[in-house]
């Protein structure tokens, strides 16, 4: 186990960036100088100034405010989607690893099928058929990413299931459900936290792509992917419109990936540090 204080500086920087983004997402209504959807017809396509920190877009909406609200949308949705994915994946993975037998075979077959589908294609198709809405997005993301989760959880459970203390509790008369919740779940908790963190980063990227294609968050909702889509016509004259949301996605995902590595260090999940980014 490694101490928080001993972690490399780069992880602390990542943690600061992440905290800054999360708090600006939470306090967006207080920090934002303008309403993100307020259209100012006289102030369209302005460059960065004191009045508009990051300028305004083609409709005269304040880019800085939209970035803040975009953080709110991206982060809250990604956390919700990662939670749904985790709940489904962990439940199925624990059942399949703990009980084994025919249930395990069936769940593993499902895992194989879902991992055999290209994820983003399925997301595009599901969002396309169901029509873009938060519910269909949540459905699409959960359905396409639970399988990887469940496969890892199953592997962990298979290892723990054979431990002596599980046998001990069982001989004391504990039910399967009690063992799963009180003994197995706490043991895989550290791995889950890491998977959950890294998954949030992946989901932020996929949602941004879907929004960019017009299949994600719907206008006028401020979303980073959609903002990049709006900016692609003007990027030569107004690079701020393109750079601001893109750099935000980059910074958010990079810091989430680094935090994932830091957690791995903290929990000593992988003894060798070869897989770390920095």
């Amino acid at each position, binding site marked *: 186990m490694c101490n928080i204080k001993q972690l490399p500086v780069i992880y602390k920087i990542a943690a600061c960036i992440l905290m800054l983004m999360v708090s600006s997402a939470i306090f967006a209504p207080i920090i934002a100088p303008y309403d993100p959807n307020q259209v100012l017809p006289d102030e369209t396509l302005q460059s960065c100034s004191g009045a508009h920190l990051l300028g305004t877009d083609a409709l005269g909406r304040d880019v800085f405010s939209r970035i803040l609200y975009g953080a709110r949308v991206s982060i809250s949705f990604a956390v919700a989607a990662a939670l749904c994915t985790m709940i489904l994946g962990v439940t199925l993975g624990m059942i399949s690893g703990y009980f084994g037998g025919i249930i395990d075979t069936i769940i593993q*077959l499902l895992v*194989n*099928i*879902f*991992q*055999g*589908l*290209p*994820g*983003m*294609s*399925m*997301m*595009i*198709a*599901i969002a*396309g*058929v*169901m*029509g873009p809405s938060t519910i269909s997005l949540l459905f699409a993301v959960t359905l396409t990413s639970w399988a990887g989760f469940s496969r890892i959880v199953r592997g962990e459970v298979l290892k723990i299931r054979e431990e002596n203390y599980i046998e001990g509790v069982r001989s004391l008369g504990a039910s399967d459900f009690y063992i799963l919740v009180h003994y197995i779940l706490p043991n895989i908790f550290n791995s889950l936290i890491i998977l959950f963190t890294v998954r949030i*980063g992946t989901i932020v*990227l996929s949602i*941004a*792509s879907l929004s*960019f*294609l017009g*299949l994600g968050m719907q206008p006028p909702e401020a979303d980073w*992917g959609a903002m*990049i889509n709006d900016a*692609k016509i003007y*990027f*030569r004259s107004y*690079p701020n419109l*393109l750079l601001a*949301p*893109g750099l935000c*996605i*980059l910074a958010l*995902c*990079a810091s*989430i*990936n*680094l935090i994932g590595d830091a957690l791995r260090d903290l929990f000593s999940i992988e003894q*060798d540090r*070869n*897989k*770390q*980014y*920095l």
Partner: protein
Amino acid sequence: MNDILFYLVKKLLMIIPVLLGITIAAFILGIISPSDPAAVLLNMDGVSTPSAQEIANKRHEMGLDRPLIVQYLSWLLQILHGDLGISYITQRPIWDELMLRLPVTISLASCTLLLVIVTAIPLGVFMAYKNNSRSDFVLRTAALIFTSVPAFWLAILFMWIFSEELHLLPTSGYGTLAHLIMPSVALGAGTIGILMRLQRAALLEVLEQHFILTAKAKGMPFPMIIWKHGLLNSLIPVITLLGNYFGAIISGSAVIESIFSLPGLGSYVLEAIRGRDYPAIQGYVIFTGLVFVLFNLLVDISYLLLNPKIRLGGK
């Protein structure tokens, strides 16, 4: 020899449920889609509005009132004959349209894959060779950025820099290799980042093994050790995951194709979504699923060449 055969047959058998799963997923998409194929077919001339009775008759004629499982099986039989139905928009067979688009996506995906392999693996090896040095740190930062950057944003940045400012590469279209350079780099960036890191980790793990120590004790130069003993052993985990990441390439191509106006499967499905052409969306799911599955089969076969454990019967 028997072991190789057993391995291949096992892999082929494992494909069947996945293929069925893909068709079931596509079929379910058709069911949840908010359109009635019978009504659409009757409406195709765009002149008359069919009455409820006409629609009901047409539904019966098309077999849409049968149980879902019967409908699925007859639909599956159609697919096996290469019939995916008629596109609502162009009114041409979807199978033919997808076949027309497939080469574009395949060439983009293969270009990207080739790029990923020739950049990520050498860079990963170099990082392991120079472990914990300054250049290792720089490359690890680069890998982090590659995995975290949104591909579509990178694509627009490339267009801005290389087409608009430097006039080096064409912004859009399809035909020559130059048209595929920017799309491939943008599409492959994420995978390059992941694979660099993976190759580095895999090689570092191999370098801790005892036979490497033996080679060092023999006085073999370090680059030679990596080349002769390290590289091939480290490639196995990397190739395993290459199969998975190909899924990201094939499905990420939708975004990239739409940005660079490449007429592939991805831009086809986006047109289909805009036109609410549900059978075409189903066709897209089946085609990309098929490409993904076939690629993974290729990866499994390439294992035979790389991994002696499988050749020697370690299942």
